[in-house]
């Protein structure tokens, strides 16, 4: 097996096994206990844990510190890094810092606009965009160089990924955009939450037509719905989200206290269906503030036990 890094995620996917990741959001305070607790719930059921980077532009404990904590606990973190808050100096610096602590995975994102968060009056940076951040990590890792051209003594050995949204507009460039991220250096892809399976499968078919799953590992993103309210919110308020009416109707069809169970059921069924979709290398289960449901989903979807590599 030809490995570029020490990443467990890379090993699992390169060995042809389905990978499972989940995500944990850091707390809004100087406290690592919560993240330790959340990660502890899922650690035996996932291969790696994404730590979000000030998601929805709400200020939180930093992703890098939380990743270091997980690493010290023996988990495999995926450092999410957005280009919204840091310029190229800070990005490269944080990449080195993460790598020095043995963090082997990174997800390059542009980040939600700051107007959604708790500092709408703040400046945004966007010195690089997400694709240029991918290129930066690959340049640092593969050529041992900084963006400025200087060489470094010990390059960061990061397995580097990107997000893809198969549902955002315009649809016709969704697959070309995936190709572009791969060309920029994305070795794995975690997709936006999938509720519209037909549309996702169409996107995957187009990706297969272009041979893209051979060039990157595509992980299907899933978020279980907790309620009808959440489904409606996701449909109407979250940019780039595609929640078909059938999903909402299905949740409406059960008693209110059973909606969460129904949401979990939908999620498990989606995974089972997508396990049959050619070109899928794993699942990224984003149970937002609902970490305790991840083990059950992983088990019911036949993804447990996790491989040891």
């Amino acid at each position: 097996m030809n490995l570029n890094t020490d990443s467990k995620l890379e090993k699992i996917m390169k060995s042809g096994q389905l990978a499972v990741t989940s995500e944990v959001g850091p707390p809004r305070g100087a406290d690592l206990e919560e993240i330790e607790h959340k990660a502890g719930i899922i650690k035996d059921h996932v291969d790696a844990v994404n730590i979000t980077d000030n998601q929805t532009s709400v200020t939180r404990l930093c992703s890098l510190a939380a990743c270091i904590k997980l690493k010290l606990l023996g988990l495999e973190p995926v450092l999410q890094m957005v280009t919204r808050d840091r310029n190229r100096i800070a990005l490269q610096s944080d990449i080195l810092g993460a790598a020095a602590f043995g963090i082997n995975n990174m997800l390059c994102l542009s980040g939600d606009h700051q107007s959604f968060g708790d500092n709408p009056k703040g400046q945004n940076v966007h010195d690089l965009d997400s694709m240029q951040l991918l290129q930066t990590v690959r340049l640092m890792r593969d050529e041992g160089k900084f963006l400025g051209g200087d060489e470094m003594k010990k390059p960061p050995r990061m397995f580097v990924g990107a997000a893809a949204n198969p549902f955002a507009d315009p649809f016709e460039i969704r697959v070309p955009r995936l190709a572009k991220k791969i060309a920029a250096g994305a070795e794995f892809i975690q997709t936006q939450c999938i509720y519209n399976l037909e549309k996702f499968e169409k996107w995957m078919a187009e990706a297969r037509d272009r041979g893209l799953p051979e060039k990157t590992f595509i992980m299907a993103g899933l978020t279980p719905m907790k309620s009808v309210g959440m489904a409606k919110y996701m449909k109407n308020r979250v940019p780039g989200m595609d929640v078909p009416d059938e999903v909402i109707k299905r949740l409406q069809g059960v008693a209110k206290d059973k909606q969460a169970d129904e949401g979990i059921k939908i999620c498990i069924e989606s995974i089972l269906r997508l396990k049959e979709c050619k070109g899928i290398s794993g699942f990224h289960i984003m149970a937002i503030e609902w970490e305790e449901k991840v083990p059950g989903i992983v088990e019911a979807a036949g993804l447990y036990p996790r491989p040891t590599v």
Partner: protein
Amino acid sequence: MIVADKKPIEEIIEFVKDRERILVAGCNECVTVCEAGGKKEVGILASALRMYFKKQGRDVKVDEVTLERQCDHEYLEEIAGTVGNYDAIVSIACGVGIQFMAEEYPKMPVYPGVNTCFMGATEYRGLWVERCQGCGQCVLGQTAAVCPVARCAKRVFNGPCGGSTNGKCEISKETDCAWQLIVDRLKTLGKMDEYEKLFPIKDWSTDRAGGPRKVVREDVQQ
């Protein structure tokens, strides 16, 4: 053109409330077109200030002038003979004109009467839109003549981001997604193959990042 918008009158009053002789100075260029700082707006602002002082029972002189341009020493010199009659100037030119006025008359307090917003154009009367941020290294040749610096909320060069919905930006349903516009135009021009070219990391040193900028043209200097 440079687009500006009126400052709230309360803010302007706060600047000049203790003054005795005020000159309100407009500009006949961009701010006239965007109806923020031309002759008409000079008259409106001067009247509002006069009303304010009258209500306060104070006898404050408020005069009006509209120069051809405030971003030009030649036109600023036109008021050299009378500027000594005032103890404050409220300029409603753009930020460039306001500063040039202050540089021309170093002893005179100069206050802004507008907020200078962006480089843009009139979509229709009452709606002015941004088109350029003066980054100093034009990318329109690579982006189907739609600027991602000025028109994308995240200024992404390899867009659109995941927040593009029905052609609109994630920040507002009123804001077009610049990358939807770029893709649409590439399609119209039959150049969709260009979409997959990765846009290299931008040199921002010609932008604000590089500090105050100058254009030096020795060939036209006298």
